[in-house]
């Protein structure tokens, strides 16, 4: 399963994106949360219903600059992406952040991840931002390759960290 979930980060005018004949991209609904929990659990091995409900409460529905989109195949959620516009952090002008992307692994290479990413980029573009960022674990070849295939390059920002445990 293609999945990345690492960075916790307008009104959306996105209408359903028809992509091919197999699935549509639409705004997440409350009914999608259990499927999101299950898809995430399949990847991480940990069910986090409270976390995803909180994410839905903050990003679901139509919100200005916040986008929680799902790929829907005949009523079944087969992938989702979450992002938002953030401004002036680290001195950066407003830009879109993608912090979660997941696709059913049985349907990988079917264009679902690309459709989700393009849909959220369209939403960012409509909001008025022209830069989209994400963070990927350096050893996550699958997700890194996916974002590279979308044309993403290394950012002008470097992420730094330190262990502060005693």
């Amino acid at each position, binding site marked *: 399963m293609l999945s990345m979930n690492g960075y916790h980060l307008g009104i959306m005018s996105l209408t359903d994106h028809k992509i091919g004949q197999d699935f549509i991209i639409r705004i997440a609904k409350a009914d999608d949360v259990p499927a999101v929990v299950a898809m995430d659990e399949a990847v991480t091995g940990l069910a986090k219903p409270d976390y995803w409900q909180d994410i839905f409460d903050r990003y679901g529905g139509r919100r200005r600059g916040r986008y929680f989109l799902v790929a829907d195949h005949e009523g079944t959620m087969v992938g989702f992406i979450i992002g938002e516009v953030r401004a002036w952090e680290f001195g950066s002008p407003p830009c879109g952040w993608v912090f979660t992307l997941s696709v059913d692994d049985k349907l990988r290479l079917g264009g679902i991840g690309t459709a989700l990413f393009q849909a959220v980029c369209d939403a960012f573009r409509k909001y008025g931002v022209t830069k989209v960022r994400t963070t990927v674990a*350096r*050893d996550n*070849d699958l997700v*890194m*390759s996916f974002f*590279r*295939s979308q*044309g993403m390059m*290394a950012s002008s920002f470097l992420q730094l960290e330190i262990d502060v445990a005693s």
Partner: protein
Amino acid sequence: MRLQKATRCALYAVLELASEPDRQMSANEIAEKYGISTNHLAKVLRNLGREGLVEAVRGAGGGYRFAGNPKRTTLLDVIRLFETVETVSSGEREPGDETPEGKALSQVIEEIEATERATLNSISLATMLKLVGRHGAA
């Protein structure tokens, strides 16, 4: 990072051939386009052939054709056929390595190398061809 001559030849060759998988090109044609030595490229193409990335087409109008999977072959895959992508931790021990200064230096160099490897390993030939297209369109 500075790629060796053979590695650059190999990358040009696979990118050129992968851009039109059904087309066959001679070593001469590829060498001329990139301004590289035909003899050198011929050796590189033989290596790429042994690895299954290109195949030689015999007969009149023969040449080379791409035979790999552009979505599954990364820049690192090609580079490793021609040079060692060394890491500090896997390389030979150098004088001073065990000193605090040597360990600190290794830590910084490992950080650089890890980023380099991650970059090369995340960019497939298919992704590179898109990037090439963007530069061509610019």
